[in-house]
């Protein structure tokens, strides 16, 4: 019996898709890289996920878990074919209010979780720009961030435990409501593993109390450097605001054209800062940030006067990527990190790279974390331009690594950055990571060809080099 027949016997015809249009839709995520799935399945329970993995094992086909497909590094693109497991139907949310937590299906949408938690005075801290579409399972897989991770940390700090299905088809539990589960903390490995170590089927998340009071500030500057200096100075002044975001002029214009949020389009850069806490603390922190901005040449400080104004400012920030569609049919969004003391150099450097290749670059990013998101708007049908975009991307990575930074801050590695991992890590470091993959998934069944470049596993116990065949995926 074929794999297709096995999946249909398990799930019926409705939940197994393989017509060319469906395969085309599920061939990629929000990145530019396309794979080609053999079929797409929609499990509704952990038991069905187990059965899917067992069928895939029997037929030796790759298993590619997928949430909403908003990922930006081809983490959900089935580049080796196989079965795409869409987890969107597993979206139930079960609150545990006394423990300020919730058990959540991987397909639950990030914003739905926070909206539903609001009635209990709680929220889920990670808030990626895609939060109205992206799923908690996807957040877990990518260790997603968002503006409010500056003070509260990325998804990994908010996943207390999970049930996941291993490559062998076992149902395993790690972590839980009790802190410091005994033994090795495998949760730390599975979170951020981009579906390569297991498929999370139930996720226990930490919920935080809604802040008592909030102040959202918009500061505008006549130079990017002045804005970047302000960010560095705020951190150096011993403050960790809830969020500290920067947008450059090109991006501000694009957003303003689209949304009419009242952003100052003549500013070279704007900063969006948010402080939360008691009324006393938010007022004094807002004042401190304003003063630091003014010292750095900030032209104007606007403080959102009500919830509607605050929401509009955030809508401007979180819709930025959508607004780029006005400029060009495609965009290539980067995600690198630099130490916050190197922000000015990093910003100068990324503009130089865009100029060198004659590309249109816009910036909107998590400045407080040093997490850059240079975005190149272009037309991918022009092969020469597309090649330049790739090259500029590699240059940006080199620049940030050279400043002591990291390859990826919150979007993951996927395929897009896989072959750049060796710029960030030594052979031994990558070998250690490859061993993790081999332990969890010796046959490389789960989301193969992601994160680690070919040949990562190059040492054996005795330090003897074990050559892999050319082009082998590990």
């Amino acid at each position, binding site marked *: 019996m074929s794999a297709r027949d096995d999946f249909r016997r398990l799930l019926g015809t409705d939940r197994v898709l393989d017509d060319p249009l469906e395969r085309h839709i599920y061939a990629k995520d929000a990145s530019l890289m396309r794979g080609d799935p053999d079929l797409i399945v929609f499990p509704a329970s952990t038991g069905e996920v187990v059965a899917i993995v067992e069928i895939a094992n029997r037929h030796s086909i790759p298993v590619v878990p997928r949430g909403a497909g908003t990922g930006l590094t081809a983490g959900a693109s089935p580049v080796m074919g196989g079965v795409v497991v869409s987890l969107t139907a597993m979206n139930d949310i079960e609150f545990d209010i006394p423990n300020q937590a919730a058990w959540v299906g991987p397909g639950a949408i990030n914003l739905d979780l926070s909206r539903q938690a609001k009635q209990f005075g709680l929220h889920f801290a990670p808030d990626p720009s895609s939060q109205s579409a992206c799923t908690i399972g996807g957040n877990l897989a990518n260790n997603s961030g968002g503006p409010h991770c500056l003070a509260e940390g990325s998804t990994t700090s908010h996943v207390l435990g999970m049930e996941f299905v291993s490559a062998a088809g076992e149902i395993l539990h*790690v972590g*839980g*409501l009790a802190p410091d589960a005994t033994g090795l903390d*495998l949760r730390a490995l599975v979170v951020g593993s981009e579906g390569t170590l297991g498929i999370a089927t139930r996720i226990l998340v930490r919920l935080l109390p809604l802040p008592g009071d909030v102040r959202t500030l918009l500061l505008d500057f006549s130079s990017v450097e002045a804005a970047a200096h302000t960010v560095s100075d705020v951190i150096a002044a011993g403050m960790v605001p809830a969020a500290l975001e920067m947008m450059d002029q090109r991006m501000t214009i694009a957003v303003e054209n689209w949304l009419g949020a009242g952003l100052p389009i003549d500013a070279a850069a704007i900063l969006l800062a948010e402080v939360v806490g008691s009324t*006393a603390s938010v007022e004094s922190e807002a004042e401190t940030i304003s003063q630091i901005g003014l010292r750095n040449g900030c032209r104007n400080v606007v403080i959102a006067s009500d919830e509607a104004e605050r929401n509009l400012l955030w809508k401007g920030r979180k819709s930025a990527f959508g607004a780029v569609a006005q400029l060009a049919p495609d965009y290539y969004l980067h995600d690198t990190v630099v130490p916050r003391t190197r922000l000015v150099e990093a910003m100068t450097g990324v503009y130089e790279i865009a100029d060198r290749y004659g590309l249109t670059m816009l910036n909107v990013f998590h400045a407080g974390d040093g997490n850059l998101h240079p975005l190149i708007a272009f037309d991918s049908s022009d092969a020469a331009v597309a090649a330049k975009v790739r090259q500029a991307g590699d240059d940006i990575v080199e620049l940030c690594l050279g400043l002591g930074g990291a390859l990826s801050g919150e979007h993951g590695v996927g395929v897009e950055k896989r072959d750049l991992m060796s710029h960030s890590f030594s052979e031994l470091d990558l070998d250690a990571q490859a061993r993790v993959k081999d332990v969890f998934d010796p046959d490389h069944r789960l989301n193969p060809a992601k994160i680690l470049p070919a040949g990562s596993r190059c040492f054996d116990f005795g330090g003897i080099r074990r050559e892999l065949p050319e082009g082998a995926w590990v």
Partner: protein
Amino acid sequence: MNVLADLETEIAGAPEGLHLGPRTVDDVSRILRVATDEEIAVRVWGGGTHQRYGVEPSPGIVMTMAHLNQVETWEPDDLTLVAGAGAGVVEIENLLSTRQQSALLPEMQGSGTLGGVLATGRSSLKRARMLGTRERVLEITAVTGDGRVVRSGGRVVKNVSGYDLHRAMVGAFGSLGVIVSVCLKLWPVPPDSATIRVDDAGSALSTERPLAVLETRAGLDLFVWGTSSEVEAAVARSGGTAARGLHWPSDPVGEFRWSLRIPPASVAGAIEMVQPWDYLAVHGAGEIRLASNSVEGATEIRDWAESLGGALVLVDHPDADPPLDPWGTPPMTLAIQRRLVAEFDPARIINPNRLPGGL
């Protein structure tokens, strides 16, 4: 062992065995390679404060990390610090306090080291608000049992490049490699703070993100920090008696020391359960530090904790052999854990048997 003669030293308070004091990461690598080849257990020694945690390794090499104690870099304006595993927790926090910063390491006195805190996974009493030690770690360099020097993470506050091995190394007792160097995420320390004696944990926890709510036999304390006006407001709201500054309670004292881990909402019930043991409960986090002079009642408490998905772990005991399994029921992922450790410590020489399930 002539090949390691140049590294011989004397470690005060350490059990018998070959005492070695590596001065460089290469020395650590050399020691571990020899130990793997000869299949000799290596007990890693930080400050010597938690050597009875889990099952003690059999005599062999005792390796002190004392010489790898440098603060390599401190970037106050980036809120990051890189230090050797042997650096003292007290020394690090004292240094950081000169610029009103903290690594949010456990509040401790004496000889505890950064590497020891990470290897045992001990967290700060501020964990309900500031999260555990695992969340403070940005990068770790470690040496595997077969001598490979492996780095995971990076020196930036946000990073998703590859598997978070560095986080998994927290609480791993060296089984994924001996930690030699660590990059920590720092936090600014606000100008004012107070310790407030209160009556009710529930209302204390409902304060605007309290720094900690701790309960001991002496009573219940709410810890707050912030600007002077914030702290004054919190004191007024609480209605309790306040002392300026953070006056952390000391750990419970007894021949047997335990760590009880339960869901946060079960802490009040746990305090009933653990009478007459001495306790320090971290409300909102589900951690209760316990001390007793016998193991009587331990099985009952453990069964209750495990029924809630938690654990009762024996952290210290007077005799060489623990009177009961220090960990309780092993985790269901033990097979994966065993395979993982085999990749990082193939001859299983680094602190063997310390982990649950005889790993």
